[in-house]
């Protein structure tokens, strides 16, 4: 909102306050849950949350880039499914693991590339371009798999390790991957030209163009990165599920976008951090986990999660405007 943005806190202090606000929501949520359920604050459960959320979080990193550039990617869930299917079909056909993984991620990357082309060269609004890709990637995933899950008769150890392994016997591998990717993403945004241009495009695309930024090329990069990350997430998920599922990730696009917005991104672009994407993804994960731990009935769970998403953002908004007014 124009009004709100005018009150924005300048400089690093504001950024910090903003980050802290969503972090605060996360901590409150965690605190409440630890009181309500003795199982919440166990290492097992925390890692389980991390594991459950890692797939969403990896996609959220890519989605965050796109949202910062004032775009949106609705196709992430479908790309995730397609990549998982491609990877497992390769594995089922006896293709070596490395090649199968690469194939899966490549499928996602390709979809992202197409998104990028449609948005930049084709001038198609991101919402429509990726909505189209959402249908196409899902359709192809269904066609390739014939509609059924792709079962693997023999599972390479290292494939299982990707989704279910533990580093040093403790930390789940997907969590480690997420952390590494998040660090890379944050570095990209902060320390590279592409990152800087992403913010500039999201804040004022025409100004970026008139400053010599090759807007089209940047957009292609960003959407491709998001596609690649969705592809990687799909491969990891299929390792966790030990199969390729053509319907995996249905509706996750909204979860991922919600994670980004809860984490402080603005859909009108120019704002957002990778840390925010992670915190947002964690809030969503903790919410779901908490509802299950407390055995909230599935129907009430929908109500509760809906309400808490709104409240989390409201707290953020409120602190934000408080700090500034």
């Amino acid at each position, binding site marked *: 909102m124009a009004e709100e943005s005018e009150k924005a806190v300048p400089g690093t202090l504001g950024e910090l306050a903003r980050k802290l606000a969503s972090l605060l929501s996360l901590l409150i949520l965690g605190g409440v849950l630890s009181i309500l359920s003795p199982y919440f604050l166990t290492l*097992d459960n925390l890692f*389980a949350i991390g*594991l459950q959320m890692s797939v969403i979080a990896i996609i959220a990193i890519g989605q965050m880039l796109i949202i910062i550039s004032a775009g949106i990617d609705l196709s992430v869930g479908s790309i995730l499914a397609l990549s998982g299917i491609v990877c497992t079909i390769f594995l089922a056909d006896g293709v070596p693991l490395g090649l199968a993984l690469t194939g899966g991620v490549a499928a996602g990357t390709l979809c992202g590339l197409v998104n990028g082309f449609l948005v930049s060269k084709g001038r198609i609004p991101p919402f429509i371009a990726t909505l189209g890709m959402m249908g196409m990637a899902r359709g192809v995933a269904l066609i390739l798999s014939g509609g059924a899950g792709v079962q693997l008769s023999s599972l390479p150890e290292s494939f299982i390790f990707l989704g279910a392994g533990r580093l040093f016997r403790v930390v789940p591998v997907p969590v480690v991957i997420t952390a590494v990717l998040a660090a890379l993403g944050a570095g990209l945004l902060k320390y590279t030209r592409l990152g800087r241009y992403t913010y500039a495009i999201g804040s004022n695309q025409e100004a970026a163009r008139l400053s010599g930024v090759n807007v089209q090329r940047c957009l292609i990069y960003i959407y491709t990165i998001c596609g690649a990350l969705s592809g990687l997430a799909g491969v990891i998920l299929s390792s966790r*599920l*030990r199969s390729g*599922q053509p319907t995996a990730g249905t509706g996750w696009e909204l979860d991922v976008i919600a994670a980004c917005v809860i984490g402080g991104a603005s859909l009108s672009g120019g704002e957002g951090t990778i840390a925010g994407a992670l915190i947002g993804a964690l809030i969503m994960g903790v919410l779901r986990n908490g509802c*299950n731990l407390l055995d909230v009935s*599935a*129907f009430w769970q929908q109500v509760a999660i809906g309400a808490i998403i709104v409240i989390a953002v409201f707290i953020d908004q409120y602190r934000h405007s408080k700090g500034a007014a």
Partner: protein
Amino acid sequence: QDKRLRILVSPKGLTHDFWLSVKAGADSAGREMGVEIVWKGPAAETDIAGQIAIIEDYINKRMDAIVMAACDTKALIPVVERAHAEGIPVITIDSGLDSDIPLSFVASDNVRAAEKAADILAQLVGERGAVALVNFIPGAATSIWRETGFNQGIEKHPDIILAAVQYCQADVATAMTVTENILTAQPELKGIFAANEAAAIGASQAISARNLQGKIKLVAFDASPAEIEGLNSGVIHALLVQNPFAMGYLGVKSAVKAIHGEPVEKRIDTGVTVITPDNLDQPEIQKLVYPLGRK
């Protein structure tokens, strides 16, 4: 023009082995009887309006008969009435309609089957302790029947308590997540009933990820290759298997009969079979599990 009969077979969903087996059965009957099968269902099992649109469109396309698994017992009545008015015979399979128009209902009894599942699970956990239900879509008829049946079954076992009910939205990843969370919240859990294929696969992944196979008894519906795999590896202890192939096959057969004005049976029960590691190798079970032969 091609004088071959055309029959629309409309399932509730397009994915999962269950519906693919129905399709296999329908196709097989189609080949046998020389009719063309059009396979068309909504993208999601909850998309009632989508199924209505499909049936409407195919009435407009003048199909010779419609075989359908209704997404809802009431909502599809008006289109079926229209089909009837246009002289197109309708057969329901798997999920029926609250209407007299369908000439036949070819299905197994979900409530009874789920009740049986409760008995088996109770027996497996030694008639004592907490069990959980991983159901699929809240509000979907089949999902409700299975929950009802399971509840009825559990009530017959006084020392078994149903500690948690969660839904997986017919999505394997969600099923895995909710099962993990149930396992965390219910450390005393003895057994799980997974009410469909996606729930079963997700639950078995969650159990084996925590190395609880054998300790948690898992009883599940359907018999996809992944579930058979689970049965073989000891994660799943019993499967309740309907006969989707027969539903598709008999549904189309009845439809052809109806087109030719021959009488058809109003209710055809395709039955439910319990598969355990012990009887898996029996030939009739193998036929049920691999209707098209082993892949």
